[in-house]
């Protein structure tokens, strides 16, 4: 029924269009198989900054980009890649739903010139929809460089739709797309040029005749599409006809047709018959229009000889990961002192310029040092992101998935889960989204439940701070690597437990495309890094500044004048300078303890006492639930306030004085395991509708974090640390 209804809505919408802004609107669906460069084309056309990467399943949610030209407002919808209309994974389903149910004017079908025949099979499925359509043959630069060519005009003639050759990388042909969109929009639908074997066409005709009996399928084009999709065993379409009065007749007829065709073609299913048809058709088309480049050993072949070598592949992968964390720590630490000094300078300037009082205090003691303590880690974070980005852009990501599949299978996951897990090292939010590329709902939920153990880049500041304070500098990079790897291993173990206890059953089969290696474009890399840097600074300037203001306020109020008077009297009576300073420090500490935050901290302290945390670390740990960087800024604020002589040493020194080694390791363990930030939690809620899993997700990481930290603390204690 649904289809009929939305047909009606469509015509309503159309009438209402073109009014408000005076611009006529054209809505374009950008569809195609994964990794053909759909998002890159939009970026190249419009200067947008959609995320691209050299593996299948980069885009997992549709994105709209607007262009204005010649009095038209063109809305380009970048869809997730989809291999076939018989969608397989949830992100493909997003694309399919859009293509089936949304109201749009034409389809721009992007194909990869390197794999034309495979791509055209999907093109034929799209052509069955009988929408206005343009074919964009992308990556033409790669084919031509190897000595191949595509005969554009021949292809146009045979398909009966406009064809554009493009290279998003070299900005070739992409501007033509808009012109063609406008032109095709104005023209009438082209005549159908795509016919199947006569015996199939005969059956399609029969189905159309029955479909025409229903008022929903009066349109011959739509009826033909529905008939073909029924033969292609498209379950969605089957469901839409299920409630129609003609269903019984149709159902009986379908059964007969399936049997007849399957006998005649000697195939298991009519969908196989259609696939074979499309395959033969695309072969024939490619033969006539494509000059294939001479076969030779490509760079990809040579690299793969080494990088996915049965014996050396895994060690190389581990080495690369180790190298990444080494560089993240070592190189990232270089500008740290500079940044730190800059913020101290800012604080001092504020103190000098502003009159003393609450405002001066909140700025110079609350916000600026807290924000500075976090921004200090921007270089580390950028290096880590650069590494992840290189992994995505070069095509190595798919290789890593290949190498790890056997290993992951033992833990009840599959190789493809590696992709969201690695994105998790950057940020958990997009990683939850990326889990959409996993077909099996069980695989997906398991992956999402353990994703939090992949330490995100926001935890990096906490780790780097604690490592710097409590471990020898020579091992810092290794410790960081160990922390990230332990998180990953813990994730795998938990996945295994979840798989055996809660989600019995085999993991989904692993079938994945391995893209050729591509040189990352420097421009794309710098744009991505710039976006990351901007987001981080914005977060530091707004969210973290706000949080540290709150922390500062609650740690400075209420004023206990009784206490101050007592101490002032004592200080008067102090015998020497040293005693005076001692008393001053004691006062500051007492004041902090009697503040609102101190009261809260004292209340929760018993919970964390078994881990060796004092109330300040306890408060910092809890504040990390908002965002992990806040742990650092909170520690900075709390340990600065308690210190009367403010110039004495850095945060690192204060931490060393106040926290034991055992407690520091326990803190690292907690940070590694407990719930991610609010943003990640709300993404999980949006992606997982089941209340059971939402509830489970909120509780188990925190319980586990505490237990693990307790274990580690006592183990270290036992070992005599």
């Amino acid at each position, binding site marked *: 029924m649904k289809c009929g209804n939305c047909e009606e809505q469509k015509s309503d919408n159309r009438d209402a269009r073109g009014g408000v802004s005076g611009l006529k609107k054209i809505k374009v669906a950008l569809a195609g*198989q994964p990794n053909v460069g759909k998002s890159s084309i939009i970026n190249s056309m419009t200067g947008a900054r959609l995320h691209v990467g050299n593996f299948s399943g980069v885009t997992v949610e549709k994105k709209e980009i607007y262009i204005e030209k010649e009095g038209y407002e063109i809305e380009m919808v970048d869809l997730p890649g989809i*291999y*076939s209309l*018989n969608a*397989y994974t949830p992100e493909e389903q997003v694309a399919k739903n859009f293509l089936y149910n949304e109201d749009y004017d034409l389809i721009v079908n992007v194909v990869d010139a*390197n*794999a034309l*025949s*495979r791509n055209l*099979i*999907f093109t034929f499925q799209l052509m069955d929809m009988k929408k206005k359509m343009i074919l964009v043959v992308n990556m033409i630069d790669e084919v031509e460089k190897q000595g191949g060519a595509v005969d554009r005009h021949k292809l146009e003639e045979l398909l009966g739709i406009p064809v554009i050759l493009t290279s998003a990388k070299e900005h070739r042909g992409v501007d033509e797309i808009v012109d063609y969109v406008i032109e095709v929009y104005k023209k009438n639908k082209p005549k159908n040029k795509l016919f199947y074997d006569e015996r199939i066409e005969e059956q399609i005709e029969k189905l159309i005749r029955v479909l025409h009996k229903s008022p929903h399928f009066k349109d011959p084009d739509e009826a033909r599409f529905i008939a073909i999709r029924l033969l292609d*065993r498209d379950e969605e379409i089957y469901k839409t006809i299920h409630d129609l009065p003609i269903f019984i007749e149709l159902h009986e007829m379908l059964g007969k047709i399936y049997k007849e065709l399957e006998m005649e073609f000697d195939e298991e*299913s009519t*969908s*196989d018959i259609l*696939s*074979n048809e499309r*395959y*033969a058709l695309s072969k024939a088309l490619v033969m006539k229009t494509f000059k294939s480049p001479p076969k030779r050993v490509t760079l*990809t072949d040579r690299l*793969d000889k080494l990088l*996915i070598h*049965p*014996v050396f*592949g895994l060690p190389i992968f581990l080495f690369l990961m180790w190298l990444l964390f080494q560089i993240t720590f070592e190189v990232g630490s270089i500008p740290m002192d500079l940044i730190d000094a800059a913020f101290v300078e800012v604080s001092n300037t504020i103190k000098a310029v502003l009159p003393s009082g609450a405002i001066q205090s909140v700025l110079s003691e609350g916000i600026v040092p807290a924000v500075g303590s976090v921004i200090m880690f921007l270089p580390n974070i950028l290096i880590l992101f650069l590494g992840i980005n290189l992994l995505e852009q070069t095509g190595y990501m*798919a290789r890593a*998935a*290949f*190498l790890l*599949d*056997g290993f992951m*299978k033992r833990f009840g996951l*599959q*190789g493809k889960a590696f992709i969201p897990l690695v994105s998790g090292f950057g940020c958990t939010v997009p990683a939850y989204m990326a889990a959409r590329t996993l*077909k099996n709902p069980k695989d997906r939920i398991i992956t999402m439940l353990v994703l939090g153990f992949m330490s995100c880049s926001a935890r990096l500041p906490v780790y780097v701070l604690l490592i710097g304070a409590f471990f020898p500098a020579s091992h810092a990079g290794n410790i960081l690597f160990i922390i990230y790897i332990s998180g990953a291993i813990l994730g795998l173990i938990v996945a295994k437990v979840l798989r055996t206890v809660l989600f019995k059953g085999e993991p989904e*089969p*692993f*079938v*994945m*495309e*391995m*893209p*050729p290696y591509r040189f990352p474009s420097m421009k794309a890399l710098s744009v991505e890094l710039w976006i990351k840097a901007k987001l981080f600074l914005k977060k530091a300037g707004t969210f973290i500044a706000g949080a540290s203001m709150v922390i500062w306020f609650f740690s400075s109020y209420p004023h206990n004048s009784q206490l101050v008077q007592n101490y002032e009297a004592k200080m008067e009576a102090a015998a020497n300078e040293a005693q005076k300073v001692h008393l001053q420090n004691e006062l500051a500490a007492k004041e902090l303890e009697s503040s609102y935050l101190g009261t809260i901290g004292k209340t929760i302290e018993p919970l964390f006492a078994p881990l060796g945390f004092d109330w300040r670390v306890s408060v910092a740990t809890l504040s990390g639930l908002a965002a992990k960087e806040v742990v650092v800024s909170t520690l900075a604020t709390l340990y600065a306030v308690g210190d009367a002589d403010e110039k004495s040493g850095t945060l690192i020194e204060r931490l060393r004085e106040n926290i034991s080694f055992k407690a520091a390791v326990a803190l690292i363990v907690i940070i590694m395991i407990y719930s991610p930030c609010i943003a990640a939690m709300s993404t999980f809620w949006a992606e997982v509708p089941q209340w059971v899993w939402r509830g489970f997700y909120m509780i188990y990481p925190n319980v586990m974090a505490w237990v693990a930290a307790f274990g580690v603390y006592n183990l270290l204690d036992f070992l005599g640390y």
Partner: protein
Amino acid sequence: MKSLTECTVGCEGRIVKIKAKDPIKGRLVSLGLTKGSEIKILDHTLAKQTWEVESDGTKIALRDEEAATVFMEPKGSCE
């Protein structure tokens, strides 16, 4: 007729049968692994759990369970 997992690296031939059931079969087909298409075995992991094949310029990674359902007629001897 041999299943992919019975072949060695470097083996080339033509696909003659895919025994996998839908939806995996559909996925293999839409990646270009159909009856009649050419195929070459590129690589497998140490434990032969995951395989890499090439068909029509596309490289595809798949697990042994899936690879065992794809049958090919090897060109020449390929032991």
